[in-house]
């Protein structure tokens, strides 16, 4: 589903990704781990299409199609979702409005009718119940005054409503207490499906106690230097990153 070959990405004057290759199939959950500054968030932003991250070489293919030239909104409508590490507060834009506009943009792209108000509300409330979110969050400004945990739940809510084919969750576990972490994990697990791929970008292993990945990758200095099954995450937690990084450099 997602096929990245020899990807080089620059932001500002810095080359961050230096030949990253990654293949994620439908139905799989991959975890991308790595030390701070290794390029994890850059990878997430580049796949979502942020202008500040310039692809200087290599390819990003989604469903066999090169998406390098697509705007972020086109990628979103094709079914790529980025869960932000730092969800943006947008006072004055209602949470429900954004959810509905996002859903309708996608439906329109597929040639479907816009969702009616009643159906939308039913859908949103159903997904919120799953995530343990109070329906009153629908009428708040997008992430406005939300706690760290509420913001991350809101990201998962958007994902649950939009039902993307590829979800990249950037440090979704950071800043969460244990209840929020469990709720977020439950939301992610509920979305695991044969036709959907999920990429978890994380620094710590603890999210993986609740979401079992099929493949774990270690990213270091802009490249994937090691891949393994779920046991690799535990090993990284115990031994740190140095041994993998050194072995790769070795």
């Amino acid at each position: 589903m997602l096929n990245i070959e020899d990807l080089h990405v620059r932001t500002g004057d810095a080359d961050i990704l230096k030949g990253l290759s990654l293949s994620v199939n439908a139905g799989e959950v991959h975890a991308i781990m790595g030390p701070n500054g290794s390029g994890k968030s850059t990878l997430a932003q580049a796949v979502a299409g942020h202008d500040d991250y310039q692809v200087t070489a290599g390819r990003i293919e989604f469903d066999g199609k090169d998406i390098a030239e697509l705007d972020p909104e086109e990628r979103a409508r094709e079914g790529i979702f980025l869960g932000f590490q730092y969800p943006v507060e947008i006072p004055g834009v209602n949470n429900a409005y954004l959810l509905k506009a996002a859903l309708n943009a996608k439906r329109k792209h597929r040639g479907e009718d816009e969702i009616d108000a009643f159906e939308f509300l039913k859908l949103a409330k159903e997904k919120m119940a799953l995530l343990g979110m109070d329906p009153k969050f629908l009428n708040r400004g997008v992430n406005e005054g939300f706690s760290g945990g509420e913001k991350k739940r809101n990201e998962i809510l958007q994902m649950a409503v939009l039902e993307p084919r590829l979800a990249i969750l950037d440090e979704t576990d950071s800043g969460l207490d244990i209840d929020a972490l469990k709720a977020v994990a439950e939301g992610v697990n509920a979305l695991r499906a044969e036709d959907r791929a999920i990429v978890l970008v994380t620094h710590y292993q603890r999210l993986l106690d609740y979401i079992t990945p099929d493949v774990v990758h270690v990213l270091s200095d802009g490249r994937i230097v090691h891949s393994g099954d779920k046991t690799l995450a535990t090993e990284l937690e115990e031994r740190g990153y140095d041994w993998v990084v050194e072995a790769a450099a070795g």
Partner: protein
Amino acid sequence: MNGLDLTRLKEHVSGQGPSALDPIRERAIASLESDGLPSTRHEDWKYTDLSVVAQISDAWLANPAAPISTTAADSLLAALVDDGEVDWLLLRNGNIEADGVKELAGVSVSRLSDGAHKPQLTTPLAALNAALISDGLVIDIESTPERPLGLLFLDDAADSPGLSQTRVDIRIAAEASAELIEYHASFGDNEHYGNAVLTLDVAAAATVRHLRVQNRSRAHSQTQRLDVRLARDARFLSASFDLGGKLTRNDLDVDLVEAGAHAEFRGLYLSGDGQHMDNHARVDHRVGPASSRQEYRGILFGRARAVWNGKAVVHEGADGTDAEQANHNLLLSEHAEIDTKPELEIYAEDVRCSHGTTVGQLDEKALFYLRSRGLAADDARRLLVRAFAAETLRSVPIPALTDHLGGILEHRLADIKDIPLNV
């Protein structure tokens, strides 16, 4: 002297009724003769040139034709009156309409020419106003009215240059609570100058909720002054919207004269091609404790010009003052210009004062966030501009006219053509 033809003005005024206004007219003319209108050399008028005001006034004095009612003005009037949410008093083309003085429970409405009320003349523009008014409204709100009271300033200038001078003095009795709406609208493409002078005297423990809407013709100019005086524990809560007009200058002066007074006012101005919008707001803290908050927001696009000057003066002994001033501007075009200046003068010791201004473009992070959810770039930009305006819209202290205001604001926002990503 700024061009104003005082000889012609005196000729026009002499013999104009009602004679009860003669003393104030004489005072006004004497004041104009000694001071004239302020020029751009005056600090408070540095960015707003009143020579256009003098020109239109002179043109009108040379030919003071009665304006012909426009159908657009008639339709707005009908729509607002039919809506039935507000008790309207109509000031059309500077005249108090016959049904503008009506019986309302708890409210006494009279005319300045009745002679019981002696108006203050605080500035040269207030003097110009007093010299040329046909009459003024005096409104006493004795107890909490059932419905919001609306002042509709409606001007037509389709055929010849127009001039309207309006004066309204309002007193709110102690412990009363009133909702007050000022609606300034005008129609027609000929030149027009409107000059409105209002005073609002709020007695102890009374509350005024105030909404001001200015949506005048893009060919018309206006100056407006509102002086608010707050007694002990009185509250003034206000939101103001400037959407139309060519040259617009608003002066809002709030005087906190007794302890416990609280003023909280916000403003939103949308200035586009060929528009000049100047907001000067001043708060005088004469005693403490008392508090004031002001926040103005501006959206500038095309070849727009805007000015904001927010001043708080904390007088000697006004300990316990809490004053905040803020001005935020979205600059959506490289051709737009804003001059913004917060001012604090503090002569007391135990005070809490803060001020801040920002001038910027749309938040890039928010734009990417919206686009990453599938919203087209242009839709995302418009949504962020609307969101910026919505912050003021949701602070309106009066529920009446919500839909109408949302509608005209949306209509005006649709005038913003291209929103560049970076200016």
